[in-house]
């Protein structure tokens, strides 16, 4: 399966592919996606056509979310984002749904990836999906009442959960129907567990040590990012984005800033673009270092954890000298970067480029050919490419299944089309493949950084459009006009024009998408984050069947589930 660059010479005549145009409106949206506004009765037909038709071939379901418009006749809008790995075109399908009858047929029969996305839309927005196998709350707890992202829900209204109300699945009481001689046992792996990297709960039914059925529960770190973004201005969301995927916080901020810049129609200056690339690639490297370090700890190899944390500390020094914070940098701003890089930036970057390969090589030498490690990870948690795409996988996990889908190549942004780098793929799709892909990606990141630092242009690091970015302090202290722009920006915020935009970047785990909806005021109307680990983790309970408990741990750590991104 190959991914190719989009062929924009011939726009797809979608209306012709579905002859009956009742209840459908097709248009090209402002952000470049083909947008189809469909009636609820035609939804499944449209989604089927998008999936099955050979010219459309939308095999990757990216996101399903709901948006609340209390002033409209149809209060809710269910929004689907789809793409095709091979053809590389993107679609958005919007379905208006009224408040009294807020139900929509499920897309689970077409894409397995719809599973958890629809549960989230039910939990946070209250839209029912008919035919969904397991429509329960996913991010909030059982005792929660109401639907939190509706506009009439008070952001600070909490519900207390007592221990008696924690969820146990119905099948927990059944026997797995084996030979009847031994009982099956149901255990909890997590949520407080050294190997669950945060807060995940896996309820597993065991036959000895073999897992016969599993179900996952998430939401233990649901920090209400999307509701918080509705109560703060556009620039103030940036510290919140840092805490999404906290291992590589720069990438989230840059992705958000790119989305807002797309809506505003401005571009960051070239120097800011290159510095964003350098710091994003360092963040990607850091994230892979933590993932591999944690994988190796879970398998029993502790030394590599220390070896990987040393380059992390050295990159922290670089980030701290640029931005002031080690882990949560808040360095990106809408229109560029917060401030100029320090004068010894190039020196620090070159020093790191010389130091980091040694640590990667050390771990490579210790682990890659090690027979114990291979025995623990080879063949464990293998998925085929079709299955992975059906579940909505992107990123290194998908590349380990043999699909060379990387947004930096297929939909380049920030000037990635000018850099030379390779995309590592493996064909096995197991944990060992994911380890190898991440290790090689670290080396490719270093390659990109070297090319970027060799060609760092001069110039400003933030746009001079003062409707968007704060004026420089030297002018604020001396000129009246700059002072007025400063006051207006802080008090009124950035006035992003009305509209919606989906902007995706390649995060460390896969496609990190932001669906931004603006109503023209200084605060976001709705921000939906498409987290890469959400789609990856929903396949996990199905991957577990037939594996042993220690294998479950080895698979979990190789998927790199970051709870901040998963639960938002």
């Amino acid at each position: 399966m190959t991914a190719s660059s989009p062929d924009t010479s011939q726009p797809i005549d979608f209306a012709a592919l579905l002859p009956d145009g009742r209840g459908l409106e097709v248009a090209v949206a402002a952000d470049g996606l083909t947008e189809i506004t469909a009636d609820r009765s035609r939804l499944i037909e449209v989604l089927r056509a998008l999936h099955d038709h050979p010219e459309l071939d939308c095999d990757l379901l990216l996101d399903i979310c709901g948006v609340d418009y209390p002033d409209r006749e149809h209060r809710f809008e269910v929004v689907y984002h789809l793409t095709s790995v091979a053809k590389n075109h993107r679609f958005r399908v919007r379905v208006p749904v009224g408040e009294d009858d807020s139900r929509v047929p499920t897309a689970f029969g077409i894409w397995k990836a719809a599973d958890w996305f629809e549960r989230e839309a039910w939990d946070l927005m209250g839209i029912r999906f008919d035919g969904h196998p397991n429509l329960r709350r996913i991010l909030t707890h059982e005792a929660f009442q109401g639907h939190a992202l509706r506009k009439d829900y008070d952001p600070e209204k909490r519900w207390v959960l007592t221990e008696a109300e924690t969820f146990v699945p119905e099948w927990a009481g059944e026997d797995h129907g084996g030979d009847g001689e031994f009982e099956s046992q149901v255990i909890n792996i997590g949520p407080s567990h050294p190997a669950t990297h945060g807060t995940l709960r896996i309820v597993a039914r065991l036959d000895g040590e073999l897992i016969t059925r599993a179900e996952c529960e998430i939401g233990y770190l649901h920090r209400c990012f999307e509701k918080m973004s509705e109560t703060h201005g556009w620039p103030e969301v940036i510290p919140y984005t840092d805490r999404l995927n906290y291992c590589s916080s720069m990438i989230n901020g840059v992705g958000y800033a790119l989305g807002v810049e797309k809506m505003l129609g401005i571009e960051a200056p070239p120097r800011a673009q290159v510095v964003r690339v350098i710091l994003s690639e360092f963040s990607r490297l850091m994230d892979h270092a933590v993932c591999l370090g944690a994988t190796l700890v879970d398998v029993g190899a502790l030394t590599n954890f220390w070896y990987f944390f040393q380059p992390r500390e050295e990159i922290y020094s670089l980030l701290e000298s640029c931005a002031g914070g080690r882990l949560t940098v808040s360095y990106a701003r809408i229109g560029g970067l917060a401030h100029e890089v320090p004068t010894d930036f190039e020196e620090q970057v070159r020093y790191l480029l010389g130091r980091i390969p040694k640590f990667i090589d050390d771990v490579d030498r210790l682990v890659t050919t090690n027979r114990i490690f291979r025995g623990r990870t080879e063949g464990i948690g293998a998925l085929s490419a079709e299955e992975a795409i059906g579940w909505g996988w992107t990123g290194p996990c998908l590349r380990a299944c043999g699909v060379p889908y990387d947004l930096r190549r297929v939909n380049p942004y920030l000037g990635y089309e000018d850099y030379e780098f390779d995309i590592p793929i493996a064909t096995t799709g197991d944990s060992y493949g994911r380890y190898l892909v991440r290790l090689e990606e670290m080396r490719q990141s270093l390659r990109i950084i070297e090319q970027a630092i060799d060609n760092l242009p001069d110039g400003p690091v933030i746009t001079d459009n003062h409707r968007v970015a704060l004026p420089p302090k030297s002018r604020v202290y001396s000129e009246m006009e700059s002072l007025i722009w400063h006051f207006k920006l802080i008090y009124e915020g950035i006035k992003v024009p009305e509209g919606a935009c989906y902007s995706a970047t390649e995060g460390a785990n896969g496609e990190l998408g932001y669906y931004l909806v603006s109503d023209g005021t200084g605060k976001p109307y709705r921000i939906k984050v498409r987290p890469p680990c959400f789609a990856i983790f929903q396949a996990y309970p199905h991957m577990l069947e037939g594996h042993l408990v220690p294998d479950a741990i080895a698979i979990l750590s190789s998927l790199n589930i970051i709870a901040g991104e998963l639960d938002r």
Partner: protein
Amino acid sequence: MRQPDGSSALLTTRLDAMLAWARKNSLWPLPFGTACCAIEFMSTVSSHYDLARFGAEVVRFSPRQSDMMIVAGTITDKMAPVVKRIYDQMAEPKYVISMGACACTGGFYRAYHVVQGVDEFIPVDVYVPGCPPTPEALMEGILKLQELIQSGETQYDRLKS
């Protein structure tokens, strides 16, 4: 053992001081890490800062085998019963360090699913601010806890007396 006039005997104060010295120098942490602060905790135990120099060598995720719970990261309403249960399972004497803005007060998440400070349901000895606190700040927090243990002013001592 208290004397008739309320003060402690010489032997037991010496014993208390020795016990406090032993306890403060072998605090085994239970890192209840949920979010970004857990990554900074991992940095603190890594070779660059090395928490093991203060006696916190054995980082066990089991409440039965640890003295000090470091709540690192945001605690949500869904996670709160779990924290309470783990805290109850710890053997006494036990101490709690609340690391980071989210664990101390809820941070900037004034939201519908976030506990506004873990001291809503467990007693906290030391609050370490920061988002996330630097490893030095966390070590300063542990040093402060050691001081409190030596002087007998932790929450555990208050509940005991």
